[in-house]
C-alpha cells in the first residue's frame, strides 16, 4: 500500500550497488594504507634495545607553552563526579602514589615500598632510598600533570585506551604507541595525540634505565 509504483525501487537498488562498490574500493585502499602505517596495534613488534649513554647537556629552558602547575599533586576525585577537581596543596601521600618500579597493568596503590623492593629494576647501583624514589615519584606526577593538561576535550565518544611511551634521558619523547585499544581507532589516535602533544617533558632525575623511562597511561573517555 505504501511502496510507490514508480521506479524508485530500481533507484534504491542502483544506489545500494553503487554504495557497495564504493565501499569495496575504500576498503581496499584503507587496507593498503593500514599495511603501510607505522602503528601496529595488536601485532607484536621485535625487541629493540637502545642503550642510553648518560648525558648532561645544559638545562633546557622552560617551555612557555607549559601551564603553571601547583607544586603538589591534584586530588584524584572518584570517577562518578563529572567536574574537574582543582589542584590543591596537600601531602603527596593523599594522592595516587607513583612507585619507583611497576607492577603489571593495574594502577599502583598507595604505599610504594611494598612493591618497590621486590621487583628490581636495572637502575645500576641504586638503592630504594627515600630521596631518589621521591624525586622519581615527583617526576611521574609531573608527567601525569602534563598529559592531563593536554587531555582530549569535548570528545563525544566513549571508551578507554592505554598509551605506552618511552622517554629519552633528557625528557624528549622517543616513542609512543597504543598498548591497549579502546576498540575505536579514532579514540586511540586522540589518546596518542594527547601524550605526543604533552612532550617534550622535563629531564628525568638522575640515571635511569630504559625500563624506568617507559610508562603506560590509561586515558578514559566518559
Amino acid at each position, binding site marked *: 500500500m505504501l511502496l510507490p509504483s514508480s521506479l524508485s525501487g530500481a533507484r534504491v537498488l542502483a544506489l545500494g550497488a553503487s554504495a557497495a562498490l564504493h565501499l569495496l574500493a575504500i576498503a581496499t585502499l584503507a587496507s593498503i594504507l593500514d599495511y603501510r602505517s607505522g602503528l601496529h596495534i595488536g601485532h607484536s613488534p621485535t625487541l629493540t634495545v637502545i642503550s642510553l649513554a648518560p648525558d648532561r647537556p645544559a638545562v633546557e629552558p622552560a617551555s612557555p607553552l607549559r601551564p603553571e602547575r601547583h607544586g603538589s599533586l591534584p586530588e584524584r576525585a572518584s570517577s562518578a563526579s563529572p567536574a574537574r577537581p582543582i589542584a590543591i596543596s596537600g601531602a603527596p601521600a593523599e594522592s595516587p602514589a607513583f612507585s619507583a618500579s611497576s607492577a603489571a597493568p593495574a594502577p599502583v596503590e598507595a604505599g610504594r615500598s611494598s612493591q618497590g623492593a621486590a621487583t628490581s629494576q636495572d637502575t645500576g647501583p641504586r638503592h630504594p632510598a627515600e630521596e631518589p624514589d621521591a624525586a622519581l615519584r615527583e617526576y611521574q606526577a609531573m608527567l601525569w600533570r602534563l598529559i592531563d593538561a593536554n*587531555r582530549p576535550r569535548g570528545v563525544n565518544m566513549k571508551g578507554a585506551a592505554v598509551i*605506552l611511551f618511552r622517554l629519552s634521558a633528557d625528557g624528549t619523547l622517543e616513542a609512543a604507541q597504543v598498548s591497549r585499544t579502546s*576498540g575505536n581507532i579514532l579514540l586511540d589516535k586522540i589518546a596518542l595525540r594527547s601524550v605526543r602533544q604533552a612532550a617534550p617533558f622535563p629531564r628525568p632525575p638522575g640515571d635511569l634505565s630504559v625500563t624506568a623511562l617507559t610508562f603506560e597511561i590509561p586515558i578514559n573517555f566518559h
Partner: protein
Amino acid sequence: MNSKITSLRILLAASSALLPLAAHAQEATMLPPVETDAANPTDSVGTAPVTGRELTRDDIKRRQNSTSDTGDLLRQLPGVSANSGGGFSSMPVVRGLTEQRLRITVDGSPIDFACPNDMNSPLSYTVPQTIQSIKVVPGVAPVSMGGDNIGGVIAVESAGPRFATDGSTLVTGELSTFYRSNGDGFGGSAQLTVANANLSATYTGSYTEARQYKGGGNLGLVRSTEYAKTDHALALALQTDAGLFRLKGGYHFSPYEGFANQAMDMVSNKSWFVNAGYDGEFDWGSVKFTADYRDTDHEMNFLEDKLPGSMPMNTEVHTFSTALKLDLPVSSRDKIRLGGEYHHQWLNDYWPPVAGNMMMGPNTFVNINGAHRNRLGAFAEWEAHWSDTLSSVIGARLDHVAMNTGQVQPYSTTMMNMDDAMAATAFNAVDHGRTDNNWSASALVSYAPTEGVAIELGYAHKARSPNLYERYTWGRGAMSSRMIGWYGDGNGYVGDLNLKPERADTISAAVEFKGAGDAWSLRLSPYYTHVDDYIDAAFVRNLTNMMGMPTPFVQLQFANQKAEFYGVDLSGHIALWNGGKDVGTTLSGSLSWVHGQNLSDKAPLYHQMPLNVKVVLDHRQGPVEAGIDLEWVAEKTRIDLTRREPSTSAYALVNLRLAYNLGPAKLSVEAENLFDKGYSLPLGGVSLGDYKTTGVLRPVPGRGRSINFGLGVSF
C-alpha cells in the same frame, strides 16, 4: 622558541613510529588514568556549552509512544516550543525564534524545508524511535556549529557506528511498536546493527500512520490531522588506521499528511538522500569532512476534510552540501578550529492547471522557477582553556549567500487572475539575483569555580539571509498568496525581492548547580536578543472571497522590522528518595517564559509561547517505572493583531505513565491528557480544516485523552 618546539615535535612524531615498544610493556610504569568527561562544562565549551541542552535517548524513550513528531518531543526542553504543522511536521521554536531562523541538522547534514507551507520541515524526516540524541544550542552557539541562523542550532543524531570490541561479530538492535487510541495511531520501528571490529552496518526503518484526532472536552474532531509515513536508511561505517569512513543512504515516503492550520494538505512526499563522511585524527589535529545530497518530490492538494475541489501543487528540491572542519590543538591551552562549507539548494514550485476550472488554468502557475540558493561559509574559532576552571571560545564567520530565480507565470491573464497577472508582469520585469555577505561572531566564557557549579556567559552577533519564499513569492491574488502557509494563520503572504538579511545580537547567561551524586540540580538561563531587519509582515489588504464577501483573512507582505526577545528558562530536579540501583523517586520541573515584541509597530510578535511550567514525578522500583507529568500553560493574551491571531486560554494537563521491564523487553502504557481537558494550542494556528467544513474559525485544539501502548525489545 615555539617554532623550535613545533619542529621538534614533528620530528619526534615522525621518528617515534620507527621504535616499537611492546616488548617493554610488562616493565612499564603505570601512571594513574587521565579522565576526560564530555559532560565537563568548561572542557566542552566549544562543542556542548552549558547554554545548550541535550535530549538523551532515555528522555526520548519516555515519550516516543505518544508522538511521531520529533518537533513535539523537543518541547520537553525549557525554552523550546513547537509551531504546529502536520502530524509529524511541527516546526521548533527556540526562545521565540522560529524554524526559518534555526539551523537544523540531521546526522550533521543541514536540511532545507521544501515547500511554501513548510510541510516537510527538516525534523519530519526523523522518527523519535531511531534518534540517539538531540542537541539544542540557542543563539550564542559557537560559529563552528553552523551559519545562516540567528536562533541557534538543533542537531539530531542517530546512533553513531558501533564496532565489535571483543573479536566476535556484534549483532545488536531495537524493535518497537506503539498504538495510540486517540486517532488510532500506530506504527513500529526497527534498528539493526551488524558489525565486526572494522566494519559496521546499521539498518533503520519505521512506519507510522494515524487518523484525525479528537480534541478534549467538547471540542470534537480536529479535521485534517491524519498522516502516514515510512523511513528507511542503511548506514555503513569503516574504521581503519586512516580514519573513519561513513556512507548512509535512505528513503522517505509519505502518502498523505493533513495540515489543520493550512489551506492545503500534503498528498505525496518522496525523498531520498546520500550522506558520506570522513573523520580522521592526526597528530596535528582532527579532520571532519561531510558531503550530502537530497532529492525531494513534494505534492500538495486536498485530503478528504478539505474537499470538494482540487488544486495540485508540486515542489521539487535538490540540495547538496559539503563541509570540511579542522580542529587544530596548537598548545595545551589553545585549540583553533577552521572550517568551510558549501550548501546548494535548487527549488522548482509549480501548480498544474485544473481541467474545467475557470480560474486555475489553462496555464501552469509557476510560483518559483528553478530558483537556487547557494551559500558558501567559512569560519575561524579559538577555544582556550585558561585553567581547569575557566575556558572560552571565540569565533567569527562569513556566509556568502547568492540567490536567483527564473521568470514566473500566472494561471491565466483573464480578469479572474488579474492580480496575479499584473504581479507576474512586474516580477518578470526586474532582475532577481541577490547576494548577501553575512558576518557572524560568537563569544562564550565558561567558568566552573568548584565542582557542581558552572557559569557561562555568551554574546553573539548572527545573521541569516531570507529563504527562497520570503524573497521570491510573487502572487498577489487572494488564493495564490494564501499558499504561503507556514504561519498557520490562514493569511496570504507576498514576498519582497528587496528583503535584507536579519541580523541579531544576543546575550545570554546560564548558571548550573549540581549536588553530589546527582542528588539535585538547578539551572537558570536568562537571555536577550535584539534583531535588526527582523522579517515580519506588513498589512496589504483585506482578503475577500470569490463573491467579494469579506473573509477573516488578510494579505500581508514580508518586511524588515525590528524585534526583541527576552526571557528566562529555569529547570531542576531533586532525587526525593534513592533506594539503591533501579529504585528511587525523582521530582523534576521546568519553567519557560519568553517575551517577544515587534519594536517597529510596538506590538507583540506572532506566536509567542506563554509562560509554561512542567512538573514530572518519576518512580522506579526494580522492573517497574511509573510517572506523572503535569503541564500548566498560561493564557495567550499577547497576540499579533496584524495577523488577526486568536488568543487562547490557560490550561493544565496531566499524564500518567507506567512501564514494565521484562528482560530485554519493555511494555508501557500511558494515559495522555488523563482528564480529557479541552484546550487550544497556543502555537497551533487556526483550524482551516474545520473552517472549510463548519464555517467556524477556531484555534487548533490540542489532543484529547489518549491511551497509548508501547512495546520495545532491545538485543
